[in-house]
């Protein structure tokens, strides 16, 4: 239905309503379309008046829809009126109405009222992160940074994840402001990005850069750059952090992988206790390896080639300079077939150690175990992103550790090598995460706002240094 252009009289509404195919839903549908077409609120009011006069009451859902229209058009006094009416009529309100009220009021000169409403919401439920977002933005827009940060910490304490938008707002509205406390809080946000391995997008990165450069008397300058493979920043020549885990983190991760990924709820799901034990003794007797290869995964790199040839190329390519290789495979690879030639398999076994798991076991779990058992220097080769294994880890802290370790230890097949030879990209020597030394900051950022793949690591960096 198309909402009318002008306010209508009662009879005119009645006529419209009767011509509508399901009259009992007429008002609801009409309000929805008013919100969609952004009709003038006078039209909506005339419908409300009609409903109030014919029923003596207006249903809650109609009031909420009217409220949505008012919020959409920033009609502050109407929003307040609707709130007053709702408070008279209903003992409690539900989240939909509160969302609208908070959003509507936080964008107006009565933004403090939104804060009061937030307190009201807290009494009956945990406010949503968008509720906080509205209030934080309102406070920082009015330069009440202390209040904004108070809300921000309150939100974090409730385990709500702030949107990048809110974080960006802090940098935008603090531009040019002075104060040690403020600076500490904003650095805190950057460290939050670091701890949660979040990469800002381009516009957010720009806000960070502008804020740094606007701090009076601090002489920060920012440059956009790409980090060299060696891990050195071309702008300030600073060497980025290595991606190594601490001893404690490393041991922790190894134990969790064994417990959550390999054993999980039932060791039989991915392997069997006998097989895992056999694998453990095999690995212990030949430690340490330098590179562990997921044989089956690598054998599929070039689909036109025989699978064992692919593996053979990969092993040859990696087998330089006395590195000790371990290839993980499955038993079916040992049976002479069109894809697995016995001679080639034999020849490979002279260059690397091989372990063949049962055909129904999961070799990825073995890959992780062998690599972690070999020590910090050991890398692994697979094109798999290992997301399902990461998902098996039970807490987010360990998942972050896993991602960090994976970034620094996974060797992937280079996609650019279209030619005959197989090429590998070395694992990152530096850790791709927000980092600081006090007088420098290095911040990796994503090009697009919406990055499709969470496992992709950005290549672009913002280098900020203090002169």
């Amino acid at each position, binding site marked *: 239905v198309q909402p009318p252009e*002008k*306010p*209508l*009289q009662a009879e*005119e509404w009645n006529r419209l309503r009767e011509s509508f195919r399901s009259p009992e839903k007429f008002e*609801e549908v009409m309000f929805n379309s008013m919100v969609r077409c952004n009709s003038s609120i*006078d039209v909506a*009011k*005339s419908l*409300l*008046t009609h*409903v*109030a*006069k014919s029923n*003596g*009451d*207006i*249903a*809650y*859902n109609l009031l*909420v829809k009217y409220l949505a229209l008012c919020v959409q058009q920033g009609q502050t006094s109407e929003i307040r*009126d609707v709130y*007053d*009416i709702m408070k*008279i*009529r*209903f*003992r*409690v*309100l*539900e989240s*939909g*109405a509160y969302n609208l009220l908070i959003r509507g009021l936080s964008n107006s000169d009565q933004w403090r009222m939104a804060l009061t409403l937030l307190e009201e919401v807290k009494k*009956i*439920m945990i406010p949503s992160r968008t509720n906080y977002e509205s209030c934080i933005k309102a406070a920082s827009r009015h330069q009440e940074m202390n209040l904004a940060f108070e809300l921000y910490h309150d939100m974090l304490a409730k385990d709500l994840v702030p949107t990048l938008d809110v974080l960006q707002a802090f940098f935008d509205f603090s531009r040019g402001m002075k104060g040690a406390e403020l600076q500490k809080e904003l650095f805190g946000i950057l460290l939050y990005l670091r701890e949660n391995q979040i990469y800002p997008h381009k516009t957010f990165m720009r806000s960070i850069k502008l804020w740094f450069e606007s701090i009076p008397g601090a002489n920060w300058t920012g440059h956009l750059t790409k980090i060299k493979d060696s891990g050195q920043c071309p702008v300030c020549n600073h060497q980025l952090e290595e991606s190594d885990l601490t001893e404690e983190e490393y041991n922790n991760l190894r134990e969790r992988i064994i417990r959550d990924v390999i054993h999980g*709820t*039932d060791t*039989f*799901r*991915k392997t*069997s206790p006998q097989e895992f034990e056999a694998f453990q003794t095999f690995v212990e007797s030949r430690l340490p390896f330098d590179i562990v290869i997921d044989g089956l995964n690598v054998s599929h790199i070039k689909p036109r080639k025989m699978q064992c040839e692919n593996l053979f190329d990969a092993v040859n390519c990696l087998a330089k300079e006395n590195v000790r290789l371990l290839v993980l495979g499955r038993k079916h690879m040992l049976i002479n077939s069109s894809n697995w030639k016995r001679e080639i398999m034999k020849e490979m076994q002279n260059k690397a150690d091989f372990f063949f798991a049962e*055909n*129904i076991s999961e070799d990825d779990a073995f890959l992780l175990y062998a690599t972690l058992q070999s020590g910090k220097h050991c890398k692994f080769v697979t094109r798999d992103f290992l997301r399902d294994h990461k998902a098996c880890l039970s807490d987010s802290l360990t998942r972050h550790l896993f991602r960090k370790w994976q970034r620094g230890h996974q060797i992937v097949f280079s996609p650019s090598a279209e030619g005959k030879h197989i090429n590998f990209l070395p694992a990152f020597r530096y850790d791709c995460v927000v980092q600081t030394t006090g007088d420098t900051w290095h911040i990796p950022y994503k090009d697009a706002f919406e990055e499709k793949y969470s496992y992709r690591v950005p290549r672009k960096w913002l280098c900020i240094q203090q002169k």
Partner: protein
Amino acid sequence: SCSPSEKLDLDSWKKVMKSGLQEVSETVPENKELSTLAQARETLEMWRLAGRSVPENISEEQLKTFMECPSKSAKKKYLKYLHLKELYKKSDKRKMDEKRERRLETQERASKTDETKRSSFVCLWANSMDRAYNWRAAQSMIFGQPLVFDMSYEKDMSIREVANTVRQIVLSEGCNRRSVDPFHIHFCNLEDNSLYHKEFVKHYREAWGKLLITVTDQCYTKVFPKDKLIYLTADSPKVMKTFDHDKIYIVGSMVDKSIKTGVSLARAKRLGLDTAALPLEKYLLWNTGAKNLTLDQMTHILLTLKDTGDWKKALEFVPKRKYYGFVSKP
């Protein structure tokens, strides 16, 4: 369109809404602390008024379950479930009432015409059918091929999943009883006072003790020789070629709404049993959906295989939405 004399008072709805103020504030004492349960009830009522999927009536117990839901989305899901349940119940009741009315009408008409039909049989269909079925089921308990339902998955399921499982098994038992040559059904690993057991009693009531099936808390490996057992699981690397009348097939009594791959395969591996999967890919052009089928579908398929050995006929019981059609030349 309107002349100034009939100018609308656009804010008059506010007056109407505020006019009730006096009465309302009298009946509702201000600042009265509400108990958390009452508060939740009120919030639910507001959601319902706002047009969300919320049940009209909610019991104390359901309200507690609702409050124990760990997240907002879990709460929403639970409410939607209750809401739908309520709708189904309502429409069932409506249909029942309509049916009763229609029956009364026809009865009235029949009594008016007063026609008595002559027939050589007494009308006792349901009863005698039951007796015939039971006779067959009793036969199967002596001579029939065993079919095992493995009841050891309680820990892998939520309460609702267990309830769904039992529902599917009840259906399975029903279709087995009505078949020409029923299986001898075994419920193995079924412990007394387990969730499974409680749900069964809820479904069957007094009939639970009279079912013509074998219920045991023992494992199938204790009841049958190991080399005769075949565990049916969609994760099995082996594909079933023919139905073997000498083997004992095991079906895992599990509904798996989240993805728990390899749980039943792990059971079979642990006990060193043979496994098999249905040849779904071989006979059907698969469209969407998981390869794991419901327990009653499995029972239908196995019964058909046992009676006819015809894969095409048996796999008709796979839901139509899951495949495009049959492979022309398997």
